[in-house]
């Protein structure tokens, strides 16, 4: 249902984003040649016929061919999926690990200088736009310090259909900056969420009991407090994972990361409708799938919740 609505809205929007035929026919084309192209691409048919046709084919798993490259639109996008997935995975890993760790640190000693600095930094993470953050990272670590490469994926290894950058040192060096940039916002959110949760839990009776039993601070904080805090944190992280995959567009274009977001931007620029609509459908699908998965995981983590 959602997918249907999404695809319909896409088609509606395309009516206002310019005529792809103008570009496809080339700049020296005459009116007749433009019409010839229009017919060849089926763009002469009325809107509802085009849409019905698209739906019919999409159900069979055929999302059409890219106008520009004449290669299957879904293949074009899937080819870019590993890059985006690895980037999102690294980003979510960074934001979870650093976010939870810092969140715990901040909640244990809320008044200390370190905590105040971390909280101030997290405000920056939430409010500095991704593109600015990315460019600042590049200027600092690539141009001035020359520690990290400024763009691209570096050396990659192809394993079956999956091209990975995790297996080479060069690939790992290349992923650090984009992943940091992409994780910025999530990191701040997770940090704040952990902190809020920890402060609430730490004042609960059972934690006081644990302290009075004389358990070590590590056991109390990690085993007793953190476990309960993690449930909402994991939920948020899970939900945002889908978004990271689907909307890493800005980060990918700053770092020339060869992922799906980069492809989408180029396709929009070229009015390549089949690629755009397939991408948006896929983004919607990923987000839906992850929401369902997180709901299931939630039930598993917290036995109090049950779905009938």
């Amino acid at each position, binding site marked *: 249902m959602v997918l249907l609505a999404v695809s319909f809205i896409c088609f509606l929007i395309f009516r*206002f984003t310019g005529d792809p035929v103008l570009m496809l026919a*080339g700049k020296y084309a005459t009116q007749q040649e433009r019409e010839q192209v229009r017919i060849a691409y089926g763009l002469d048919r009325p809107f509802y016929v085009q849409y019905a046709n698209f739906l019919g084919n999409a159900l069979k798993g055929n999302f059409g061919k890219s106008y520009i490259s004449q290669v299957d639109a879904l293949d074009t996008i899937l080819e870019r999926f590993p890059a985006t997935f690895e980037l999102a995975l690294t980003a979510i890993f960074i934001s979870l690990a650093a976010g939870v760790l810092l969140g715990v640190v901040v909640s244990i000693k809320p008044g200390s200088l370190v905590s105040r600095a971390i909280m101030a930094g997290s405000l920056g993470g939430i409010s500095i736009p991704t593109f600015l953050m990315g460019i600042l990272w590049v200027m600092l670590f690539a141009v001035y310090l020359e520690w990290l490469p*400024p763009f691209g*994926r570096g050396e*990659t290894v192809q394993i079956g259909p999956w091209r990975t950058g995790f297996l080479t040192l060069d690939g790992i060096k290349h992923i650090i900056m984009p992943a940091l940039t992409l994780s910025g916002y999530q990191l701040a959110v997770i940090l704040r969420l952990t902190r809020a949760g920890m402060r609430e839990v730490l004042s609960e009776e059972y934690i006081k009991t644990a302290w009075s039993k004389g358990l070590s601070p590590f056991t109390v904080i990690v085993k007793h407090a953190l476990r309960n805090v993690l449930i909402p944190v994991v939920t948020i992280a899970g939900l945002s994972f889908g978004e990271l995959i689907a909307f890493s567009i800005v980060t990918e274009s700053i770092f020339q990361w060869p992922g799906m977001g980069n492809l989408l931007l180029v396709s929009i620029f070229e009015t390549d409708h089949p690629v755009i609509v397939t991408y948006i459908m896929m983004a919607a699908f990923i987000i839906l799938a992850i929401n369902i998965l997180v709901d299931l995981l939630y039930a598993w983590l917290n036995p109090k919740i049950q779905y009938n």
Partner: protein
Amino acid sequence: MKHKLMTFILAAMLVMPGMALAKSELVIAVDSPPKSMNPHSYNSDANLSYMANFFDGLLQRPAPEGKLAPALATDWARKDALTWEFKLRKGVKFHNGNPFTAEDVKFTFERMKDPEFSKFLNIANSIASIETPDDFTVIFTTEKPVPWFAETMHQNFIVDKESSLERDSGDYNTKPIGTGAYTFVEWVKGSYIRMEANPDYWEGAPVFKTVEIKPITEAATRFAAIATRQAHILSGVPIPMIAQIKKNPAVEVVSRPARRAIYMDIGNKPGTPFADIRVRKAIAMAINEDEIVSTVMRGQATATAQVPDTATIGYDPDLKRLPYDPEQSKALLKEAGYENGFEITIAGPNDRYVNDKQICEAVARYLARVGLTVNLDVKPKSIFFDELSSNKHDFYLIGWMDGSYDFGRSAQLLLHTVDPDKGLGVYNGAMYSDPALDEMIIASSAILDRDERRAALQAINKKSVEDIAWIPLHYQQDVYAVSTAVDVTFIPRPDRWIVAKEIKK
């Protein structure tokens, strides 16, 4: 399991140094990714630039002037108004080993007529028949006189008939098989294209054995790429960052005037203020182009009085810009009866040319100063060009460069009265119309003699400038950065193609 994974990762890291050595001898960063490896899939210089490394045309245009020179054809002649004969080079082989013959040429131009494979319909459809009397002669007969036919032969790349027919379209669109100086190694979309020198190239093997071209669409990232020496040559240096790049001792900035001219298109539609030449003149004189070049373009542009560039047949070195003179402009408006100005809308794209939006804004300010009421209407190119084809705008910014180096086609598309059925005036969005000029344009296409033709095209060019059929602003500048750390001699081309065989040590 965990152990196995760790060992695997460690092993992978050990092989790493070996992989690092596999880096290409020459790395070139450009601003536009390739769309397809089918040489006829996309008629833009950005894509043709990649194709020129894998394929050859019948002719070529070597740097720096871009004068027409032999390539797969050794000789060519216009036999009469409709007939063109090309003598082909012998002993050339495609990358798959197939010999190059007249059959391949015939097949290529026939395939170019098919919209499924080709965006070069215009030139292909102008061909009525192709004859191949022997293996190394091709005779084209065109439907009507196409004086610039040979002038486009550097960008109509020849494909191998046999393998093109055998392969499915997915393979054909991703793995190029040509006769070019480089053979295709790998295309990782969004990352790079790798290629290897073709040892059997008919011009001799190129100097750099392995070349990698990396597209980087974001301007700030391109800057970082050259600043961190991740690329040896960078095409499309972002103009705001030129000053910083020039400061870097490891990098040398190379620039040359581009072929593309930026101009304001204006019409003479009856019933509009533009019908009066005094108004057109007043607008032209109100625009301070020198200031646009020095401030908006930061010196990276060359003011021009005409649209064709110096390499184009029809360029007239004697044409001069109208002087910038706001007082005279106001006087002319008054004379024409527009003492209190009139409402004018300046349209233009905001994502197509260098600083296009800023130029429109500057023009708006100049026109406001001479008393016109100005509206600004800049928008993304996909919408703007759509509106142009329905002749919505009377005054707009646009750029032009003709792939053929012949002003004849430009004049037909840009200056001739709008006539969609005949394919004339397709880009005459402001609907300028002058029957006398139309006649000159049509008459010029039948002239065979090159010098005579040059004179006729110059006359058309001159008339259009004098009658202010358009207001030329400037030629863009192509700016490159070349690393001084490696031994590279790079000479930019007028068409901005990156032709690796022309890059020497």
